[in-house]
């Protein structure tokens, strides 16, 4: 039986693929390292695309269907490129009880998208989180990786409005 054990080549010469490869090498290209590797891809590129899935699946010798299954099963993995800014509203119980719903509604109407979506101009990704674990500061949200607690709808709208007002061109 002939098995093609040739190592697949990275989709591009982008140096970030070296980091992805390093993760797989650390796990000896074991199929078990699938989730770990997808984490690295998402850290490096911000999202997973078909090309990345294909490369990872071939390198770890797992069926592409399984790689795709894993990538779409877990909420943390996204297959769409993120917007320039990210706003994550916590939708955990404590935040819900303290009015996160109203904040979501205000931001939804400001941005014109529902949680889980990115504005058409790719400026803002609007996401919901199950629980940030910052229940003592409910309602909480994360604006571009900075946690903001004891939030109210007006503050949240102000923060996002600042992003929208900033007219620099989105790359």
């Amino acid at each position, binding site marked *: 039986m002939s098995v093609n054990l040739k190592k697949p080549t990275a989709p591009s010469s982008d140096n970030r693929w070296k980091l992805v490869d390093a993760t797989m090498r650390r796990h000896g290209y074991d199929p078990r390292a699938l989730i770990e590797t997808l984490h690295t891809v998402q850290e490096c590129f911000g999202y997973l695309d078909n090309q990345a899935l294909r490369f990872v699946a071939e390198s770890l010798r797992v069926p592409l269907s399984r790689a795709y299954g894993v990538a779409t*099963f877990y909420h943390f993995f996204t297959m769409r490129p993120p917007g320039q800014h990210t706003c994550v509203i916590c939708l955990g*119980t404590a935040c819900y009880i303290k009015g996160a719903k109203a904040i979501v509604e205000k931001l939804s109407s400001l941005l014109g998208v529902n949680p*889980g979506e990115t504005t058409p101009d790719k400026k803002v990704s609007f996401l919901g989180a199950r629980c940030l674990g910052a229940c003592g500061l409910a309602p909480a949200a994360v604006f571009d990786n900075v946690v903001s607690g004891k939030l109210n709808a007006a503050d949240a709208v102000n923060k996002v409005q600042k992003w929208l007002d900033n007219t620099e061109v989105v790359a």
Partner: protein
Amino acid sequence: MTPEELQAITAKEQEADKQFTHHINVCVAASCVSSQSDQVRDSLAKRVKEAGLEKTCCVKGVGCLGLCKAGPLVSVESGSKKTMYQEVKPENAAAIVDNLDKAPVPGLALDNSIPFFTSQKKIVLENSGKIDPERIEEYIACDGYKGLHQAIASMSPAEVIEQVTKSGLRGRGGAGFPTGLKWSTVSKAGNGGEKYVVCNADEGDPGAFMDRSVLESDPHRVLEGMAIAGYAVGASRAYIYIRAEYPLAIQRLKVAIKQAERMELLGANIFGTTFSFHIELRIGAGAFVCGEETALMASIEGKRGSPRPRPPFPAESGLWGRPTLLNNVETFANIAPIIRNGGDWYASIGTEKSKGTKVFALAGKINNTGLIEVPMGITLREIIFTIGGGIPDGKKFKAVQTGGPSGGCIPEEHLDMPLDYDSLMKVGSIMGSGGMIVMDETSCMVDVAKFFMEFCMTESCGKCIPCRVGTVQLHGLLQKFTEGTATDADMDMLLELCDMVRSTSLCGLGQTAPNPTLSTLRYFKEEYLKHMREKTCSAGVCMTDAGDGAKTKEV
């Protein structure tokens, strides 16, 4: 590492500590860090240096100080005098340092004689808020890794299990399975091959942050507990499965594992014996179902987190088909003190069937939101009204939700029962991992039930039909109630479906998904009827023009 070396580190730490007359401890757990407590620490350190006090005053970051709502918290210890400062900003540093030998800074000081601080009993959290979580030496100075040495050097694995059994410790992940029994099952399984220890740190319940705080405040305690477990059951490899949403806890664990390996407290030939123990981290990817043990193990194996039927239980056939011991963070955090002080000591705390203490995360409509540890058997009233400080804004208490999406809502009439696994079960809720969300009269119980059903619906893995389809139907029915379009037939259907989903789902997620609905139906049925017959919501949440508009969708 030898016990003498451990002792030398302890002595050195204590000696270094003695030169300081003042200790300024700044909380650097996630909640306070998100209000810039790291900057507070840096500016305090800078000010101490400017004042030339660095020989007598020690500034350091410590684990969770508990009262998260008042963060960033700073605790100043001068001999036996202890002052707590709340909502400290970097610009307050000068005032705090300049007042070290004087009265506490007015306006900033927090009364630390309130029951929130005095009515707790700390075992799991004994080092939280005292030691720097990123320095193993400080953990060692607090009897750290002494339990591990004691277990390996002077006890047989069977004796370790005997102490854990004697302690009466039950699984802190929620279900309350006796820990000693689980350990002894794993120790007997497997005919001498590889076994695994797994720590479940996939704290998925919304409103629960106990495990995050323990890992951020005292990570070595969990590592030590796991190593003792590995020795007791005969495992040499272990995994910690932790959510990706907890970056600070992940970073502290990485630091802790590296430090312990460097000191040879983890790795090969621990304390010069043949016992070896390696711990690896596995980062979750945001799936609530991975808190279920078989789904969690599938995820560690790099697969989709789908549960499988049990038996076989993980104790017999777990990771890669090998016997696997799976415990929660808080369970492991209890182990070292049990070995150090003996199982009888632990069993002397708590109630007849639930021993020891429990860590709870207080959140929602309560004055003192934060992290507490109390002995089992305390009443909910003491927790909410004495320690928690009651309900803010003069509102009336309505219910307390425990156990997350698998638990239930407990009304006022049951606040005086002693809290343990069995009493909570009796009133239709569960202990769960320890999240406690307090609700006042402005919360609509039908809406809350719908909130949890929506959660279970989105988080259902889709493997078994009762859960995949049932939760969608249940959510639709609850939606009818909140929109005021439900009929008597819908009520009957709701009850029937709850029963069906509960008894036929494959794993805990589906089996417990109807719990919030059932418990609110049990205690707040009149609210459902009001929504149905009078089309009104007395809390003013449903059927308003603004309400129910936004669809909350997960990524």
